[in-house]
């Protein structure tokens, strides 16, 4: 009996000793702001799913972690190709020796990544069965691809074996793309985390379930997935590993310095496990970070910003714990569009067209809108007024471009309205049109968000102060998207975040032919379109910046849009998270993070 007891005690002791070894695993826990949908890079359409894909798959190119402004870096490709043939040909050479993670589909063989894999992915984008949200990246781009896509739409199946003239696979590792027209931003497309080489056998084996079976070459693998509740990534044991590139680091930047210090000599990735919990509601997400249930929080909810950064400095209780805050001016643009069509829903649109009195009405509304209150009260100071659609940090941004045409000035707004005949003739407190007809402007906004509701409130208040009547309508998300796309609205709010760091990605929002897609204002000004088309054909430089400046001025004059803001997001981390630096384009930074497990355990007690 005693012997058995002793054995038991020994077993328990052994177990107890084994456990601390287990506890040394570096586990990062964090939350996502909205729920994910799945991890098939071609089928996923929301930022967070794509962010996970970033860690499971590897595109040909990526961005350097520390370089600012952002710089492309080769990943699966050996080097960044130079544009050939006037910006219409790009030839990539894939690095040999990169392998997909093991999967039963490969039948025990190690599967190497080859050039054909990226050709396959691009074809998948045009396959109607995938209803890819990013199909537009490859529309009207690569020679021969559109014809294949047309055929697929007619027959219902995509012929993956057909050759595409614009995608020449030369041997195992080389692929050369031929574009229909010059595009100097093509390299950015191939740096997007959802444009990645994929193994055809895997996709064909998993059919409809590819969202849950990601098989890539990346530093992490999907270990566990409870939909909309928990995502667990674990280190890919067969990953080749890399070290932090410091060539572009800025020795004067404290984040670069600390990252270099923390990661010196370490083989990346360092994290063993990442646990991600989608939490849509702000309060629980914020409280989870404060309670140390999570190690970092991306995009601290704006409602709590005064608690975190009272008067712009980190709160003392957080500072004492060593929390660090990374304020990031995201390359995004939040704005309100006016539908400038003359006829909307079969009725005359008081905001539409380019007649002087219509322009005057739009400009007056912009002047009457209290952007200061928007920034200070709704966004708690976490935004800067936009001077043009292009945010700072993006190629083509002009820091010297500044306008007063959108600043809050109710006196000038009233003067403009009076001047063009928008007066209150019947004494009901609201202005009528120059022809004497009463009018109401309708603002549609997204149902279910407090912030959206407050933005609507601000419009109603600001316009009422100058005598313009605005009515608001809360609409379901899907319906709002549709309404904006087809022009079934008068005014609505919108936001655009950079897909790639070039001004073109923002200025295309007002390009005439993009009406019914991203040009929600339905703005069709021939001068603007001409300038835009010219800018597409030239690379970044003085000439292109001049064209952009002209386009910005036209937008200010014709006012199809109230420029709004560029938002600032604050990312918080506890001191045991090492190597952190938020990248403007990359969604996650797991592969560069390290964790001080001992400190984490101590703090959690």
């Amino acid at each position, binding site marked *: 009996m005693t012997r058995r007891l002793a054995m038991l005690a020994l077993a328990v002791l052994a177990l107890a000793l084994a456990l601390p070894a287990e506890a040394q695993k570096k586990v990062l826990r964090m939350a996502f702001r909205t729920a994910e949908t799945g991890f098939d890079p071609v089928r996923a359409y929301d930022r967070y799913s794509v962010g996970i894909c970033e860690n499971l798959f590897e595109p040909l190119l990526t961005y350097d972690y520390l370089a600012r402004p952002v710089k492309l870096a080769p990943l699966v490709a050996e080097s960044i190709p130079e544009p050939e043939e006037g910006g219409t040909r790009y030839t990539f050479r894939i690095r040999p020796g990169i392998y997909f993670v093991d999967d039963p589909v490969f039948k025990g063989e190690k599967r190497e990544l080859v050039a054909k894999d990226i050709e396959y992915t691009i074809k998948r984008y045009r396959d109607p069965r995938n209803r890819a949200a990013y199909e537009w990246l490859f529309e009207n781009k690569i020679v021969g691809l559109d014809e294949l896509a047309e055929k697929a739409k007619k027959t219902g199946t995509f012929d993956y074996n057909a050759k595409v003239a614009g995608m020449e696979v030369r041997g195992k590792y080389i692929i050369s793309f031929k574009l229909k027209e010059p595009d100097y931003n093509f390299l950015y497309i191939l740096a997007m985390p959802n444009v990645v080489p994929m193994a055809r056998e895997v996709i064909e084996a998993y059919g409809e379930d590819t969202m849950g079976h990601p098989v890539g070459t990346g530093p992490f693998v999907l270990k566990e997935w409870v939909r909309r509740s928990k995502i667990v990534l674990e280190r890919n044991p067969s990953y080749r590993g890399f070290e932090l590139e410091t060539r572009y680091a800025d020795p004067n930047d404290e984040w670069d310095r600390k990252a270099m210090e923390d990661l010196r000599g370490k083989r990346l990735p360092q994290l063993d496990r990442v646990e991600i919990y989608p939490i849509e509601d*702000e*309060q629980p997400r914020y409280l989870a970070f404060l309670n140390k249930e999570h190690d970092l929080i991306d995009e601290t*909810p704006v*409602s*709590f910003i*005064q*608690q975190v950064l*009272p*008067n*712009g400095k980190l709160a003392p209780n957080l500072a004492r714990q060593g929390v660090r805050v990374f304020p990031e001016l995201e390359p995004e643009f939040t704005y309100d569009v006016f539908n400038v069509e003359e006829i909307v829903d079969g009725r005359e649109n008081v905001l539409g067209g*380019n007649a*002087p009195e219509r*322009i005057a009405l739009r*400009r007056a509304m912009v002047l009457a809108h209290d952007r*200061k*209150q928007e920034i*200070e*009260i*709704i966004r*708690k*100071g976490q935004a800067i007024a936009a001077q043009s659609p292009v945010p700072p940090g993006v190629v083509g941004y002009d820091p*010297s*471009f*500044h*306008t*007063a*045409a959108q600043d809050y*000035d*109710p*006196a*000038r707004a*009233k*003067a*403009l309205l*009076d*001047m063009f005949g928008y007066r209150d003739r019947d004494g009901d407190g609201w202005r009528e049109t120059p022809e004497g007809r009463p009018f109401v402007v309708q603002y549609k906004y997204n*149902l*279910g968000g*407090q912030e959206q*509701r*407050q933005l*609507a*409130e601000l419009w*109603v*208040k600001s316009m009422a102060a100058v005598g313009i009547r605005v*009515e*608001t*309508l*809360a*609409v*379901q998300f899907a*319906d709002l998207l549709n309404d904006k796309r087809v022009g079934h609205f008068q005014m609505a709010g919108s936001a655009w975040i950079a897909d790639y760091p070039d001004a073109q990605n923002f200025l295309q929002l007002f390009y005439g032919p993009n009406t019914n897609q991203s040009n929600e204002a339905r703005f069709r000004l021939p*001068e603007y379109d001409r300038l835009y088309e010219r800018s597409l054909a030239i690379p970044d430089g003085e000439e292109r910046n001049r064209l952009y*400046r002209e386009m*910005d*001025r*036209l937008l*200010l*004059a*014709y006012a199809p849009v109230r420029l709004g803001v560029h938002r600032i997001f604050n990312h918080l981390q506890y001191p045991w998270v090492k190597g952190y630096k938020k990248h403007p384009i990359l969604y996650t930074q797991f592969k560069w993070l390290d964790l001080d497990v001992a400190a984490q355990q101590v703090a959690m007690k």
Partner: protein
Amino acid sequence: MSAVLTTPAQAPVQESPGLWMLAWRRLRQDTVGMVSLVIVAFFLAMMLASYTGLIAKDWAKEKGVSYANPSFLAGAENLEAKAMAAKDAAAKAPPVDLSDIDPLAPYYGEWQKRAEKIAVTEVKRAETLPFGGDKWGRDVLKKVIKGSEVSIFVGLAGALIAVFIGTVFGAMAGYWGGFINDLLEWCYNIFTSIPYILLILAFAAVAQATGSFGKGIVSIILILALTGWTGPYRLMRAEYIKHANREYVKAAQAIGASNRSRMFVHILPNVSHVALVQLSAHVVGFIKAEVILSFLGFGVPVDMVSWGTMLAEAQNELVIGKWWQLAAAGTSMAILVTAFSLLTDSLRDALDPKLK
């Protein structure tokens, strides 16, 4: 036999008091009931005063600084207001000139002259308000009063319509029976089989998308009424079934009363006490439902305030220490709902003494 018939002393004729008189007397003796009645009456009076503009007319005016502290916390820190004041116009590059492409360029001169003539009055914002301010600096006390008006109105109107629909359907089903009963029972089964939140969300989504429920406050009233008629229907139907075979109804038939007359002139007064209690209970239920609907975003429109919108706003304010909007809306709602519930109970007791 006497030739003279002496009329015996007449006993004083006693009018047998009706149901309502009896109920009122019983209610009067119920202290809790009377107190609740007074409180409810007070709220209704406040609602009328607010509706006619006597009080809280300027609830939307931004009198205070952002998140103004309540007067009893006058000294406390207000980081939000400080932050707003601290921002000043940073030095900027000279603004870009638009005159060469601007269609409005010809009017610049006149524009400038007119703008100068328009006076801009800067209103000084108060540092504190009686019960604090919300994020825009609006007076929480006034918001609560106005919010009560809207919430109570939504509750009352919704309950009235729901009970009306339920009574009419219940009367038809209970009185006629047969095919009509089967049809209405079928409707009832459908509505009660679908989980309540799904039903509400579906109707709310319909109301939002198509606007077929009318704009603004009308749509939320209709949503509540169209999903809430089932309770009254059930009870009224049971009552009508009970009464339809009673003798007084047969008597009414004998004197030639039409079916409709029998249903609504004869039977209805005898079952109206059930309807009244249902009405009272549903007012409470709908006021609480409005809060949830506002939280989900289906509530009253942007230019109105209700308890629901105040609580939805207050959600994120607690964590940053601004508790007054939550307290004001939560407390006033609690008081009214408690009073209404206790009144409902007392009414039920007063109208149906067997339940004692």
